[in-house]
């Protein structure tokens, strides 16, 4: 598939569209000593669906993400992905088809953009040490495929021809996009985005929105943590609001938007001033 095809159809290369339950987290609880960061949270995500995760600072959104992606082992509860319980190892989680980006961008700064995406292909390729030294036809084919796929993905996120730049020298918006491309390179079925528009200007936010829609349309399930409410309500099919580690509300964007408790959690209620320090 050529780059132009990708751009025309908007399809993520090599991905099939279909609707089924991808992720189901049940009663996930994460305790750090006496602090309960995530308290009994449930989440179900279907393919082709965008789920938003909102909540004031310190609500446990990123901790919940880390529980899902195997960075933390939840104190209790279980995370099933495509029907199977995930081992709490980031690598296994990625292999199973779940990829993430980070709140504070964590690219490999001294590698080029292309190399960054190629690292994402690591778990889908198999050349080991001896193969790499001997360089048989299989190795060369795999290496060429990796490169081609990385170039395609860069084009897919709108960074065509920028593969040669070092990640650290890229503008902020491109760094965010590159992180998404790197995550997509692992062939995920579910993409977890941790504040993908943090620090972006309105135009960049709109571009990110389009990109996320494009990824959703190719059949991937997406979970997004965001603070930008306009962004989240434009984007998400369902929204989950976490406050102090607990699920406050779960529903459609419109339902959550109009729920007084959500507004209270963010801004605080006029009578009690409760939660004002969280906002």
């Amino acid at each position, binding site marked *: 598939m050529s780059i132009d095809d990708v751009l025309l159809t908007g399809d993520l290369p090599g991905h099939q569209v279909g609707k089924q339950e991808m992720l189901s987290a049940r009663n996930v609880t994460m305790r750090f000593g006496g602090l309960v960061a995530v308290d009994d949270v449930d989440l179900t995500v279907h393919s082709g669906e965008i789920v938003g995760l909102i909540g004031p600072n310190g609500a446990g959104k990123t901790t919940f993400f880390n529980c899902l992606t195997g960075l933390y082992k939840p104190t209790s509860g279980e995370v099933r992905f495509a029907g199977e319980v995930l081992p709490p190892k980031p690598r296994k989680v990625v292999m199973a088809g779940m990829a993430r980006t980070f709140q504070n961008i964590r690219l490999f700064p001294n590698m080029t953009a292309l190399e960054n995406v190629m*690292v994402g292909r690591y778990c889908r390729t198999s050349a080991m040490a001896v193969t790499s030294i001997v360089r048989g036809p299989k190795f060369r084919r795999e290496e060429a495929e990796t490169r081609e796929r990385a170039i395609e993905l860069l084009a897919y996120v709108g960074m065509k021809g920028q593969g040669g730049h070092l990640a650290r020298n890229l503008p902020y918006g491109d760094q965010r996009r590159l992180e998404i491309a790197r995550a997509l390179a692992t062939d995920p079925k579910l993409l977890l985005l941790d504040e993908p528009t943090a620090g972006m200007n309105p135009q960049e936010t709109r571009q990110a929105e389009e990109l996320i829609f494009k990824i959703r349309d190719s059949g991937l399930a997406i979970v997004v943590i965001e603070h930008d409410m306009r962004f989240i309500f434009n984007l998400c099919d369902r929204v989950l609001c976490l406050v102090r580690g607990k699920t406050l509300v779960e529903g459609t964007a419109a339902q959550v938007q109009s729920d007084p408790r959500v507004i209270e959690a963010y801004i605080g209620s006029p009578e009690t001033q409760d939660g004002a320090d969280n906002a």
Partner: protein
Amino acid sequence: MRIPTIFTPALQKRYHTVGRVLALAGGLLFAASAYLPWAYSGDALDDMSYLGGPSTLQFLGMFLGLILAFCAAMGWIEPWADARKLFPPLLRISKRAGWTRGAKATGIGVLVYIGIVLIAITLELGGLVTVEWGGWVALVAALAGFVGSRLLTAGRQPSLERARTAPWVDIVAIALVLLAGLMLAAYALNQVDGGTFVVILAFAGVLTAFLLRSGIGGWLSAVSRRHRTVLVFSAFAVAFLFPFTQNGSDANMSIATQVLIFAATAVGLNIVVGLAGLLDLGYIAFLGAGAFTAATMSQSAFATIGWKPPFIVVMLIAGLVSATLGLIIGSPTLRVSGDYLAIVTLAFGEIFRITMSNLDGSDGPDLVHGSSGIPAIPNLNLFGFDFGAVHVVAGIPLGRFSNYFFLMLLIMAVIVLVFTRLNHSRIGRGWVAIREDEKAAEAMGVNVFGLKLLAFAGGAFLAGLAGAVKAHVDQSVTPDQYIFLESAFLLAAVVLGGMGTVMGVVLGAALLKLVPEKLRFVNEYRMLLFGLLMVIMMRVRPEGMIPNQRRVLEFHADDEDLVDEIEEDLPYEFAEEGS
């Protein structure tokens, strides 16, 4: 690095013509002074006492003087030729070179060169009186050249590295540089006199500084990037030719073989440190494990293992034993990183040495005879080729060490192949990713633990191979050859030469091994001198002598020369604020 300003830009603007005349005259006079006697007696350095008959070192000095004069003169020749539209292709190339920068570097260089020569004469003959008048003329000329070159206004930023040259020019340039390197190395190694060796090192240093500052160095490195395969093959060809320059003398070949063993081990360490970013302070233990394995299975009367397989098999076993040790030490410790890993590996190196000293029959099984080790390891005999005998090839006798040199060259080729191929593969990308951000690499599905273990075991395997040969070269293996200091030197070679590159590490290893061998007086102070050298390198060129491109960027996030240029254009207050 930014060379401190002696004359302010204002002074430079006013006196730059004077400076150019001074630099030109100084350079020419310095070159001419090579024909004068520099020393009172022929015993200092190589004989410098003749009028009209320059010694080799004086010729080298003359060469530097001519470079200085040429660089200074280019400031006039270039506009002159430009106005008359003479030699347009040459002019185009010349306009990309930083002649003024080259002149400034050479200006300092000639002063350092003559300084070292005069100090060496004074020390070797006893007293300043032993410096003949020609030496003083040379010093005055060098001073004039130095002051003159400092007075020149800052020249343009060289852009030779962007010059597109025909492939044959590139290849001829590579061949010439390598041949010059071979000749210089062969000449330097044949010097018994320590002072002469230092002066040659100084010459090499000045020449390198000139090449780098004038932009020719940048062009050469661009050329070597374009023709990497040619470069690697010709470097090996040149190394292969080296024993033929020695006229059968084994003294230098012994050093060269030790250098190769050290360099091969350092390249192995470079996989661990330079690529995967794991600080290993006990790497010498893997070399030792290989050497002890080979020794116990050798034909030596003191060997403790009855089984005597052919050397190829022994070598593989030695590599595997080292790799197994690497796995054993690696699997529990690679979960820690950074400083902690350094401490664990340091301890491992000591444990290895002490364990070997105790395998003497009284504290443990008598495997290696404790601290006396295994002596009298015979020479190798591979496929009927006796490594102990002198073989005459094309009329040149090649002794025992030459034979081992060729074997080590072969092993070096294997190690370099493994290093570069792993570097440019999925595995290499994984290593770099781990070095850059371990958590992110893990979250992207990179098998962090497995790759770290692979780096550790792979590096150990290569060291084990080198160790097996080392056992036969040294003829005896004792635990006290594998002390912590050796690990530190290996690491120093990697850091000095340039992490993540083969060429740099080989250069670093060669320098660290050669200098103490050739300079007996350095041997006493070598810790002090190397410490100083490391400090200076960290200050001046933290990325190493021949750095990996990625490393350069790590240490120089912004283009320093560009910053310098901008600063020079700014009034002083602003420059201070901005820096």
